[in-house]
């Protein structure tokens, strides 16, 4: 089976003869579906925040994809997949690689949508209080440098891949990376005005539209059918057919059990089954299964969904009430915590008979820890520097009256 890793190793000889139409269609279909996660994130983040900031959060989601597409082409792809050392690639800037079983540009567009996904996770945690200009700069840096560097470690032939670290579609590379930077951003920014009372008690700031949020989660769920199964990057032959189908089932199962776990958790603890937490639970299950969707059994995927979702529910309260970090959409818990647990779960549940993958618990934990530390540190430094130089946070009056009017001059609802 051809994995993401193999794309990096140049398959030069007679490569054009091997370019395979069916594989290409499959990967391009995947690119469409992963692109579909962009509206998903946009809707979830818009729905879980206040109506006065809706145009702003939608703009941020556009910025992530627009600048991600540009910067990943100029710099990112070369740093992530270019030949280099164990830590980063450094080859062929603005050039998009070699044909393998699919054309180089097919690989490139598929990796571009993944990059944009990592970037867009951060906007939710920093919602409702960040200067738009500062967010644009951050979005450029994440697509050009931070994501490609840590991505090179696992998927570009770097030190983690040499140790046998297994992250099939990006629990760590995409989601944990986004979650870690989201945490750094939310810490540097501080909580929204009115989020905590004078004695430090957490207050609810209900999202303005759970219809948007729920629709967004369904979009993401659908998009994940490209994110995970199409990461086989090959569709020809019976082995690939089996693998693709297996990934579809494990991906869906973890989403379903993740949602169920969050529903039962809120029903028992808060006395009412909460829609917004079920939305997060589904996403946590999806994030959790992403690393091991090819190599764990269906039963294991159900367990992963439940465990990741339950820990995510605890984490939402922990981040909110104990750490007192204001994360309006739960990005840190869903993507950060979900990413860590999903990656470690590969070391526990990985079954070599399913996909020939062998993973060790230690290496999985090390990989997750390394990416978390790197992305958190990189995010923290970038945000601190932006804060010192220009101020990361918007003025209080803008925050109170809404970013839409002051930053963009147009409101989402008229």
């Amino acid at each position: 089976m051809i994995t993401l890793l193999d794309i990096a190793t140049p398959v030069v000889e007679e490569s054009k003869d091997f370019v395979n139409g069916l594989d290409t269609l499959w990967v391009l279909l995947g690119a469409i579906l992963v692109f579909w996660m962009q509206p998903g994130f946009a809707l979830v983040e818009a729905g879980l925040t206040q109506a006065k900031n809706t145009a702003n959060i939608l703009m941020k989601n556009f910025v992530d994809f627009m600048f991600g597409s540009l910067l990943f082409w100029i710099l990112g792809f070369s740093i992530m997949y270019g030949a280099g050392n164990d830590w980063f690639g450094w080859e062929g800037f603005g050039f998009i690689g070699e044909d393998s079983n699919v054309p180089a540009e097919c690989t490139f567009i598929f990796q571009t949508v993944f990059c944009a996904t990592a970037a867009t996770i951060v906007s939710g945690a920093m919602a409702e209080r960040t200067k738009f200009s500062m967010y644009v700069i951050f979005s450029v840096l994440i697509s050009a440098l931070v994501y490609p560097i840590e991505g090179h470690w696992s998927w570009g032939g770097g030190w983690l891949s040499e140790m046998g670290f297994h992250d099939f579609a990006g629990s760590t590379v995409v989601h944990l990376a986004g979650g870690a930077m989201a945490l750094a951003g939310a810490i540097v920014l501080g909580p929204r005005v009115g989020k905590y009372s004078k004695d430090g008690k957490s207050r609810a700031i209900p999202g303005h539209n759970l219809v948007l949020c729920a629709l967004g989660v369904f979009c993401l769920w659908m998009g994940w059918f490209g994110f995970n199964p199409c990461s086989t990057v090959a569709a020809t032959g019976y082995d690939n057919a089996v693998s693709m189908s297996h990934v579809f089932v494990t991906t869906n199962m973890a989403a379903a059990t993740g949602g169920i776990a969050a529903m039962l958790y809120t029903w028992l603890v808060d006395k009412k089954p909460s829609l917004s937490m079920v939305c997060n639970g589904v996403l946590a299950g999806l994030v959790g299964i992403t690393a091991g969707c090819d190599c764990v059994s269906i039963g294991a995927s159900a367990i992963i969904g439940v465990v990741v979702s339950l820990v995510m529910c605890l984490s939402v309260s922990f981040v909110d009430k104990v750490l007192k970090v204001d994360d309006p959409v739960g990005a840190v818990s869903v993507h950060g915590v979900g990413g860590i647990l999903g990656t470690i779960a590969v070391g526990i549940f990985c079954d070599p008979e399913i996909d020939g993958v062998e993973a060790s618990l230690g290496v999985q934990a090390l990989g997750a820890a390394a990416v978390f530390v790197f992305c958190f540190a990189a995010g923290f430094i970038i945000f601190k520097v932006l804060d010192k130089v220009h101020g990361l946070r918007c003025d209080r009056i803008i925050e109170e009256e809404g970013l839409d009017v002051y930053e963009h001059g147009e409101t989402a609802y008229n």
Partner: protein
Amino acid sequence: MKKIEAIIRKTKFEEVKEALLNSDIDWFEYHDVHGIGQSRQERVYRGVQYSTDVIQRIKITIVCREVVLEPTVKVILNIAHTGKVGDGRIFVSDVLDCYSIRTGENGDTVLRDKK
């Protein structure tokens, strides 16, 4: 002429509307109103408990001739009633005058029977 302002449950609005249309009233306005009272509703948002004191009701405003005041009030009293706390209130006040913009005439003849 009298003005009747009735704050009623949202769930009772359709029934009250039907009854008013079948009585001597040819026009009324209504608004969604938010009130603050003594009752509190406990809610949970993403694990954070909070209570909301906002109570949603509909306010109907009717200006009518004095002869139809009593039957109109009775209609609302009967139909908007459930017997539980929160059924609402009816306020009645005097109206000085009333003009028809189309004809320019004034006085309570403007508020004609609909027949």
